[in-house]
């Protein structure tokens, strides 16, 4: 692999790393697992990078590889117990900007999303990233109509989680 390729890849990933962090945060529960998944996504992106044509945006391409890695390729290491400490510490928000009620609601909603299964999480994630249903459907390999129907069902599910 040439140096320019490495440089071009690392620069673009560094710029867009938030996308990967968001996926890691959604699919893991502690800092170690987060870093593990980040690394695996980086490796998968890098392996696929030579075939990245640049006909789509680097960030768009990252959604697909990132989610595929989180949902399909990544295997959580058994040695680590699931802890939620990481989440509660690092999701603390620059509190003065928002009032408490909003804060609590956001927090509850995020926790509810984390309780969804892997596929539902992916749909919600893309929705939160402001992707349209066409893009969501393309990423997951389902039809646009079904993506829409599914999203409505997930909203219903989230409502049940929040108001049991």
């Amino acid at each position, binding site marked *: 692999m040439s140096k320019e390729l490495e440089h071009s890849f690392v620069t673009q990933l560094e710029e867009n790393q938030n996308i990967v962090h968001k996926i890691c945060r959604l699919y893991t529960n502690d800092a170690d697992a987060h870093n593990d998944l980040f690394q695996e996504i980086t*490796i998968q992106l890098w392996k696929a990078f030579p075939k990245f044509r640049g006909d789509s945006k680097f960030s768009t391409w990252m959604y697909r590889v990132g989610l595929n890695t989180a949902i399909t390729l990544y295997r959580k290491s058994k040695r680590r117990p699931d802890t939620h400490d990481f989440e509660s510490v690092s999701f603390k928000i620059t509190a003065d900007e928002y009032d408490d009620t909003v804060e609590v609601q956001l927090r509850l909603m995020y926790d509810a999303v984390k309780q969804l299964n892997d*596929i539902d999480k992916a749909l919600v994630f893309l929705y939160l*990233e402001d992707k349209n249903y066409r893009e969501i459907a393309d990423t997951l390999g389902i039809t646009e109509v079904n993506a829409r129907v599914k999203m409505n069902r997930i909203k219903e599910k989230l409502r049940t989680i929040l108001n049991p």
Partner: protein
Amino acid sequence: MDQLELLKQNWKKREQEYPNLSYDQIYDMLFKKSTSIVKWIFIISVLELLFWSGLYFITPKDSFEVIEKLGMKTFMIVFNVIHYIIVLIFIYYFYKNYVSIKVTENTKTLMERILSTRRTVRYFVIYNVAAFATTLIVINYFYYTKSDVLMQALDETYGIVPDDPQFLTIFLISQIVVGVILILLLLLFYRLVYGILLRKLKKNYKELERIEM
């Protein structure tokens, strides 16, 4: 759903809360080893292909002599030629499926490709177990019908003269017991290794399929 919309509105603003890795930290990751299940499936599958196609070579020479004396040489040669043609076909399909696994496909296609690669190897093993069982049955049938030739062959090859009249029964039963134990061990191996590796993938694949129903 108001709360989800609220989260969506706040989603972008929160980006600064995520860790910020430096150029060098990301660069170092390029040289780390992948722990992806595809890599594990590939390693295990290659080992399986090697194991099953290599079994022939670890069969003791003596056994071939006994087989020859029983007049089963032609049968064994034909059987082996067919066997290796089938092995090659399986390896071809395994390779073809494996290279089609691309992380840049959509999620559903990616899962299908992984599952079909796995399926090829599973059929390969099923084929081998069936072939193994068939050989065991055919050989033992020969042993049974030509027990006098077998005794003679054993005597000439191993220098043992079994004078116990129960010998043949014990001989046949122990062959069957060993065969059954091997098959059980294999099934156990399958449950453990693939159960662990593919559980999550299968669950998620079913979930995706359910959306399309």
